[in-house]
């Protein structure tokens, strides 16, 4: 088993390097003038050139990339913001925590909201318990997350005055943003749970369990559900991308000081160091969570475990 874990952990290194490379490359398609941005419009050209040289911005692309990555990994140095002239890392880190908190609460919440109706619709197929949640999920799939957020904002905050409409200081502040980001992936998870569960119910081992006289409750909860939930775990991992997208939207909509709203705000000022660093940090978090999902899957699924513990016959 540990061989699989080590293999996956090692693959993390080229992935993270690849991710940083792609982002750095895209942001360098139209190279800006970093020293000009730092010193301002009125600074003399000689000073600008000198600072560009000092910072290494007049080097070829690959050299700049290698410098950036080594500084990033070994000194947590992402450069200085063009806009606030502060260290990018100091500015981003507290906001990064907020975004990650939001996304993690969102992923747990979307699984909690999505899985139970998914099971219900499959077990009670063709009844009202199936139709109503399925139609709801169908409509949710056609509503963008920010529209949800705005509807909640309108009803719960502006009309009923139950919840605060912006900021992130108390529990009440997190209610609407986390719901905004978790409802669209919850609908996806529900649909996926339903089809996975329906497939499991039709399997031979479920028929065997029924035939040997196991009560329906045991058949559904033990035999069908345990097998149906395996692919759902992968689906939850995959919906993390949707969640991060939602987090950016929710931060913007509810004025939460997270990394997404920071990036969006700085796009206006072309604050490249912030945008690059923010994108890279979120992508790294995304990659690590995907890895954890894969590893969890391997630990839960006896088939993958067997492939690696017996030694031979892998792949």
């Amino acid at each position, binding site marked *: 088993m540990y061989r699989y874990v080590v293999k996956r952990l090692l693959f993390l290194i*080229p*992935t993270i390097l*690849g*991710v940083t490379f*792609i*982002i750095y490359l*895209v*942001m*360098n*398609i*139209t190279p800006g003038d970093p020293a000009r941005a730092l010193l301002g419009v009125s600074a003399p050209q000689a000073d600008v050139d000198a600072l560009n040289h000092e910072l290494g911005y007049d080097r070829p692309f690959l050299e700049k990339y290698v410098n950036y990555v080594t500084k990033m990994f070994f000194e947590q140095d992402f450069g200085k913001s063009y806009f606030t002239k502060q260290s990018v890392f100091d500015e981003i880190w507290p906001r990064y925590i907020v975004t990650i908190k939001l996304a993690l609460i969102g992923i747990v919440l979307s699984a909690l909201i999505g899985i139970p109706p998914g099971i219900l619709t499959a077990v009670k197929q063709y009844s009202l318990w199936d139709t109503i949640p399925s139609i709801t999920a*169908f*409509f949710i*799939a*056609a*509503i*963008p*997350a*920010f*529209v949800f957020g*705005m*509807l909640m*904002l*309108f009803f719960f905050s*502006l009309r009923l005055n139950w919840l605060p409409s912006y900021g992130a200081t108390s529990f009440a502040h997190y209610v609407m943003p986390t719901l905004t980001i978790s409802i669209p992936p919850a609908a996806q998870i529900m649909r996926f749970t339903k089809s996975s569960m329906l497939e499991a119910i039709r399997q031979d081992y479920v028929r065997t369990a029924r035939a040997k006289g196991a009560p329906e409750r045991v058949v559904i909860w033990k035999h069908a559900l345990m097998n149906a939930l395996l692919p759902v775990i992968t689906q939850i991992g995959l919906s*993390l*991308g949707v969640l*991060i*997208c939602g987090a*950016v*939207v929710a931060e*913007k*909509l509810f004025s939460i000081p997270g990394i997404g709203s920071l*990036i*969006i705000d700085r*796009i*206006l000022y*072309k604050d*490249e160091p912030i*945008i*690059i660093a*923010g*994108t890279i940090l*979120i*992508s790294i978090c*995304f*990659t690590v969570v*995907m890895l954890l999902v894969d590893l969890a899957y391997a630990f839960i699924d006896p088939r993958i475990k067997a492939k690696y513990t017996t030694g031979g016959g892998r792949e």
Partner: protein
Amino acid sequence: MAEQSGGPAGASFKRQSQAREIWRRFKKSKGALFGLVLLIVMLAVIACADFIAPYRLATKQNLAKKLAPPSIEHIFGCDSYGRDIFARVLHGGRTSLSIAVMATITSCLFGSLLGAVAGYFGKKVDSVIMRSLDIFMSVPDLLFTMAVVVALGANFINLLIALTLAYFTNYVRLVRSQVLNLSEQEYVEAAKAGGAGSVRIIASHIIPNAMGVIIVNTTLNVSKIILYESTLSFLGLGMPPPAPEWGLMLMEARAFLRTSPHLLFFPAAAIVLSACSVNLIGDGLRDALDPHLKS
């Protein structure tokens, strides 16, 4: 699938009857028909937008009518600059839907080509493409799109590039697995044994059989891109401001939500209706093209 068509007349007969068969199955689903009618009506209204409400109405500011609620003169009301929301929704539909359709087509072509190359050539080509894709997919879509828009600037073409890059990955995986799967089928083996070359096998066996899955996915992708594009313009990454666009209209509605909810309602309804109709058609097509699935 049958390959006994004798001559061009037989081939065209077979194709027509297959299309008719799919249409017959498609029409059985009320939801799918409803979606189709809804979409056709919406497209017709959007196509005639210039006759119903000229473009200048969508951008003409009239501060006297600021935030006016729906009335006979302005059936959807006016926004914070006094622009007619009805005209803006219509012309916004033109932008949003044409971007969605074009981005779907470009991502489908680009992704399918890459997937077919990976699946058909296999071995090294395959692993290079798939490993790069894994890395590429480790950047969340929205962040990548942001980076592209920041680097290139926000306009129609760059938005198209950004959306294509965010959505082509699905097709690479899909087409690759289809090609891998289909080339192991017995009729492909039979064709090979019969002396058919790679071009003939791809053109007359693999592409027609992979088409169904690709069409269904493409339809469902259109609605995903409609939602994604509206999210981008909501975040200010879409077309630059005076242009009417559904997401952008919603962003402008945010500040006036308390007093003027009609600013939220109409563009949001437009997004939801168009995405719903496309999804209904996609679900109907899935059932019509693949009778095995629905059993």
